[in-house]
């Protein structure tokens, strides 16, 4: 026989448990995966993003998880395949197509209204569509400019010929300093660097029907110019050793006088333009047949397996809002993207102006059906020419047939 007091205690405990259960049902914890979130600077960005959001949404708790960019693709792909992906994921824009293709992402069409759509540059938003559906929202975006040493190169080059001439002059007059640094390592940035030259030469990777069009006179011209900087003119240190994110370090050490990179070049160097040791400025990219440069974006997506799609979108919405995103760009030193951001006082400088000037001249990153094998093919193509193993013509032909054989062309999608 149970004592009465014990029964009462039991009833109370049960009631408390039920109440706690109800409260727990209302309290939602969102898991957000941020590649590169392990870097020191990211902590401030995350805090500035999460705190105001949690204050405005007391029922939602946001938990950030970090992964290095190097292993991000593998981690995200496996977690999407296993159906246990974080609720919200920050991804490279190049992964929109493959992750949509494998059915891992939640389409956002029903959440995003026209006003929200209009707050992004239309080209950048378009990069987030897959087969007519909106699969993510742009969350970071970059144009590239030419960083150049103002003490060695008085006026920045505006054409390919001037670029080469300036690079040759610096290399000749300043032993120990190369005219330019370019990327040739097995890294995503090698594709970006080469594609800007490809575009300037009048070429493109895929045509409007999604067929590969690398093996063209424009392709030959671009690959020849790009690799000749090292193989023929010796105005660049061995590109095979470096990816673009390592060039700012060479620039800072005075080993190279020019490089093409995004605004983070300044952040990595930790030096402002016109500093005393390596004075530099940024300028629009030199032009070939046409002017312009690649625009690469990052996106924020919601995984299809999330148990809290509505709360996840509330967070995505805040992240890409004028308020949330301005702070995010300021903390991360990224090109302002959301409508209204550019008028912020922090972006009024010649440095930022050069990046803003490149926006209308940008072209989007190609969208192969799977990025990583595509990247391997392109970097191998560039490396084979840099190492003298293949001529530009041979390398472009080999890359074209590899892309076709591995069914990576957008046109190869069967659904």
């Amino acid at each position, binding site marked *: 026989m149970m004592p009465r007091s014990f029964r009462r205690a039991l009833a109370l405990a049960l009631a408390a448990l039920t109440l706690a259960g109800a409260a727990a049902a209302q309290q939602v914890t969102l898991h957000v995966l941020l590649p590169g979130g392990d870097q020191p600077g990211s902590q401030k960005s995350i805090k500035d993003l999460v705190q105001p959001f949690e204050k405005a949404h007391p029922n939602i708790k946001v938990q950030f998880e970090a992964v290095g960019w190097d292993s991000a693709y593998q981690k995200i792909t496996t977690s999407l395949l296993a159906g246990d992906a974080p609720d919200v994921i920050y991804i490279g824009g190049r992964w929109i197509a493959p992750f949509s293709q494998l059915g891992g992402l939640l389409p956002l069409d029903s959440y995003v209204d026209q006003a929200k759509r209009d707050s992004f540059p239309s080209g950048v938003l378009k990069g987030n569509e897959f087969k007519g559906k909106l699969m993510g929202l742009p969350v970071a975006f970059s144009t590239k400019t030419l960083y150049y040493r103002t003490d060695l190169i008085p006026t920045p080059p505006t054409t390919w010929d001037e670029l080469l001439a300036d690079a040759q002059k610096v290399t000749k007059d300043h032993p120990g300093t190369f005219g330019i640094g370019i990327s040739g390592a097995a890294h995503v940035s090698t594709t970006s660097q080469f594609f800007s030259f490809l575009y300037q030469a009048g070429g493109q990777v895929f045509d409007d029907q999604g067929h590969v069009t690398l093996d063209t006179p424009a392709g030959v011209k671009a690959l020849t110019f790009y690799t000749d900087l090292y193989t023929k003119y010796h105005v660049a240190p061995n590109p095979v050793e470096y990816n673009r994110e390592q060039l700012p370090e060479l620039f800072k050490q005075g080993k190279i006088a020019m490089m093409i990179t995004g605004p983070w070049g300044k952040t990595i160097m930790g030096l402002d333009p016109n500093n005393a040791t390596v004075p530099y400025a940024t300028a629009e990219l030199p032009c070939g047949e046409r002017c312009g440069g690649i625009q690469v974006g990052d996106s924020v997506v919601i995984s299809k397996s999330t148990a809290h799609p509505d709360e996840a979108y509330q967070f995505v919405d805040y992240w890409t809002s004028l308020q949330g995103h301005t702070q995010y760009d300021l903390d991360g030193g990224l090109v302002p993207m959301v409508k209204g951001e550019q008028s912020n006082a922090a972006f009024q400088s010649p440095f930022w102006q050069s990046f803003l000037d490149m926006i209308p001249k940008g072209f989007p990153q190609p969208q192969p059906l799977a990025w990583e094998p595509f990247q391997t093919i392109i970097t191998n193509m560039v490396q084979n020419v840099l190492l003298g193993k293949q001529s530009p013509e041979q390398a472009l032909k080999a890359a074209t047939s590899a892309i076709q054989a591995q069914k990576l062309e957008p046109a190869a999608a069967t*659904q």
Partner: protein
Amino acid sequence: MTTERTPARSLSRRPSRWAVVRRALHPDHSPVLYLLPAVLFLLLFLAYPILKVLVESLYADILIRPDLGRTFAGLRNYGRLFTDPGVLRALRITVLWTLTSVAGKTLVGFAAALLLQHPFRGRRIYMTLLMIPWVTPVVVAAIAWRWVLDGQFGQLNGLLSALGIIHQPVSWLGQQGTAFVATAVVDMWVGIPFMAMVLMAGLQAVPNELYEAGRIDGATSTQMFSFITLPMIRPILLVATLLSSVWTFNSFQVIWPLTRGGPAGATTTLVVRTFTTAFGSFDFGLAGALATFVFVLLMAVSYGYWRLLQRTG
């Protein structure tokens, strides 16, 4: 309360049955029971994944392309394996890389073992220094070496140009030949301590009487090395090089941080290729075939070695 007394009572009533149970549970009579946890562990974490890879190798299945579907492919993945010039090149590179690295490890490790087997002043310091590569996490070591070998900032170039050996910086990891040698040397650096330790243990096990007898018979030190030391430690040498070969063949942690298999595939060994096929292309069928191929190849080599060892024994 009552439960505590039950076994005691039953024990006192039917001692024979309890003894039977105890006898049956004794390790001498039923080893299976005690091996069970280990067996289950091996089945779950070794046999199951291996079987899964084997099955996967028979399917055409690209995980990131659900639109292409998953279909039974028979041996077609193996067909792709042997007609793909990239795979054949990776096989060639792997064999050459393994031979280079294991030869280096064995020679340097053997030399270190010979030098360190007799006591001398400062021997402990050398032993400690020798152990450093072993206690360093391999990935950390590889990343450190990446900077040592860097073309523009690397300490190696700094040292060589200070000594006047080179006048232009060498891009060690940016050229095919030097990248191949550099990755092999870093792999040697990582593997030498193991070789030295094992061979030192082997040398210590050679009975001193043999050397004394040799000395009495007037053998030179070269003769003593060739006719006493070498034959005596041959079994150990074989085991050590076999283990080292298998590890080196599968070495991923050194190559990946240093070159990611580049430049232009010059250091893409079979494991690197398997990794990029599985977790870059997510082509699990082809990756499964590659992994199975490496598995069978290493089993065959190990079996050959084992036979050799039996004969030596």
